């Protein structure tokens, strides 16, 4: 609780400030004084829903930039930044074969000071790199060792989701770069063992003489919703990119951050 200070000795500015901090609005928002001693500093973290993912106190060694490289934090920052810029892009973009490309041209040519698409694309590339470097740092400091084995596994899944997010987003500009990169990428699924029609053991799944796995029903068809990359693929990738994978990543991130705390905070020597 903010302490009542004698108003007389203060300047006009301080008086005005005191009026603000003593007001019902202010005290309902912020329930502690300025974070300057142990108690208010702890309260600053504990009474804020966003900050309370942190502990109130932490190891000093875990604060060092040369130790953490800040890569996990930057990955999360980039995820948030991509969410915001992605949301803004969704106002202008229609995921259909007719409009997708021209919407991108519109974004690029006609919107004043439009760097939203650049922020989104470069942020996505940067996030792939920061996630890789985060993994490298965690590995090289042995931070996956007990009790953090499980969280390392969650991290590997988040790495996969990051790549999938970037991959599904790659198709959306609907230009030659996009469609052919996704063609190359999804062609791999044709060769999936058992469930890809050009994969080993594809002949295994059949009813009598009727093959269950063929070009119109296999792993690749499931990914692209067609024998070729087309309008259906665009819609599928769009939904996965904007809703499906971000939701999964958000859940896993919540688990990831929670486990960082539960496993004893940022790793350090015993």
């Amino acid at each position, binding site marked *: 609780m903010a302490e009542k200070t004698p108003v007389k000795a203060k300047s006009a500015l301080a008086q005005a400030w005191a009026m603000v901090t003593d007001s019902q609005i202010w005290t309902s928002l912020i329930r502690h004084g300025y*974070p300057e001693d142990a108690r208010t*500093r702890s309260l600053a*973290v504990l009474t804020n829903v966003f*900050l309370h993912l*942190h502990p*109130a*106190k*932490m*190891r*000093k*060694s875990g*604060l060092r930039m*040369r130790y953490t*490289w*800040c890569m996990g934090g930057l990955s999360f*920052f980039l995820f948030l930044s991509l969410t915001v810029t992605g949301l803004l892009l969704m106002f202008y973009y229609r995921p259909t*074969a007719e409009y997708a*490309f021209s919407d991108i041209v519109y974004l*690029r040519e006609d919107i004043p000071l439009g760097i939203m*698409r*650049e*922020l989104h694309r*470069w942020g996505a*590339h*940067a996030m*792939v*790199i920061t996630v*890789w*470097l985060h993994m490298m740092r965690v590995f*090289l*400091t*042995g*931070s*996956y*060792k007990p009790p*953090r*084995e499980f969280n*390392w596994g969650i991290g*590997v899944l988040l790495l996969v989701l990051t*790549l999938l997010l*970037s991959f599904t987003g790659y198709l959306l*500009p*609907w*230009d*030659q770069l996009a*469609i052919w*990169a996704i063609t*190359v*990428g999804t*062609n*791999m*699924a044709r*060769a*999936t063992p058992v469930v890809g029609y050009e*994969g*080993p*053991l594809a002949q295994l799944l059949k009813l009598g003489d009727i093959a269950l796995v063929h070009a119109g029903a296999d792993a690749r068809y499931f990914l692209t919703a067609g024998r070729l990359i*087309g309008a259906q693929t665009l819609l599928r990738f769009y939904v996965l990119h904007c809703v499906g994978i971000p939701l999964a990543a958000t859940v896993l991130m919540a688990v990831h951050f929670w486990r960082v705390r539960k496993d004893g905070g940022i790793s*350090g*020597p015993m």
Partner: protein
Amino acid sequence: MPEFVKLAINALTAPSIFVTLAILVFFASLKFYRIWTRPKFALGLLVASILFFLISITDAHFQWIVSQPDNVPIMAMLYVVGFFYWLSLRQAAINDERIEQGKGPMEAEETNDRVHVWPDLVYTEFIASILGTAILIIWSILVKAPLEQPASLTRTPNPSKAPWYFLGLQEMLVYFDPWLAGVVLPSLIVVGLMAVPYIDKNPKGAGYFTLKERPFAVGGFLFGFLVLWILLVFNGTFLRGPNWNFFGPYEDWDVHKLVPLVNVNLSEFIYVKWLGTGLPASWFWRELWGILLVIGYLTILPPILAKTLFRTMYARMGFLRYNVMIQLLLIEFSMVIKMYLRWTVNLKYIIAIPEFFFNI
């Protein structure tokens, strides 16, 4: 840059020589990590690489390839990864020296100091996100996102490349069939990474940088990450042109470059070249030797290694852990083996059963 230097560098970046050099440099950098990571030495390396880059940029083709908008982050990544490779080994060198003197790693001195998250961490996060925002905005103003012609399935670009972070896998397609390079190997990378904490029973090296206390784990991971992932992404991005042919960094992408495809299967080596009998009609007899070779590689080598090179490791890890670890390691290594077999004897497939789309 004089023409003969360009020609020499073009020749040196041919996959066989380049990967060999990279592997040698990688192991040398681990062996001599206490020497080259000294700040002055490392700064010299950085300056040299920047000078090399600046001289190279006078070449038209080099300038074109590095200034492709999507290649800018890859170029930046090479420097960033290089920096963090130095930073990690530098701290490992300091820590290992301290541990030898019985002082414990640097991190141990501060590990019992507890600081308040507000302000120390919260301010760091705040400043980091401001810097991140600033860098992103500047980058976005300077480099326009690429946009090519509208999508058309009737015009295939040459080369057609996957998104840049998957180019290591696309590079693997040169040596392996899609079911391995595109499906099984990536899945094994994911599963293998997740298995790491359960395989690595070394209690040392948790919470600080070190190389001496866990050379095998650090070396194995960095080999996979730096040589088999980052290096191959680099290859796929900058050195692969039309028809996925190799082109040096100063070599124009000539669509008509002819590279003879003279790759031969193991069965053809055995039955045609050595025995001279021609291929047997049945795929089983034809591929038996290749199948035995692959099975032998995965089943005979592990017990031999457990008795010799990895004896202490086997004792520490136990049967199951050791076998999971050694299978992942052998598969990681098989990529390098297959590359060399292709470069030296033009071996295409060890097992080739196109009847079942099963080629290794």
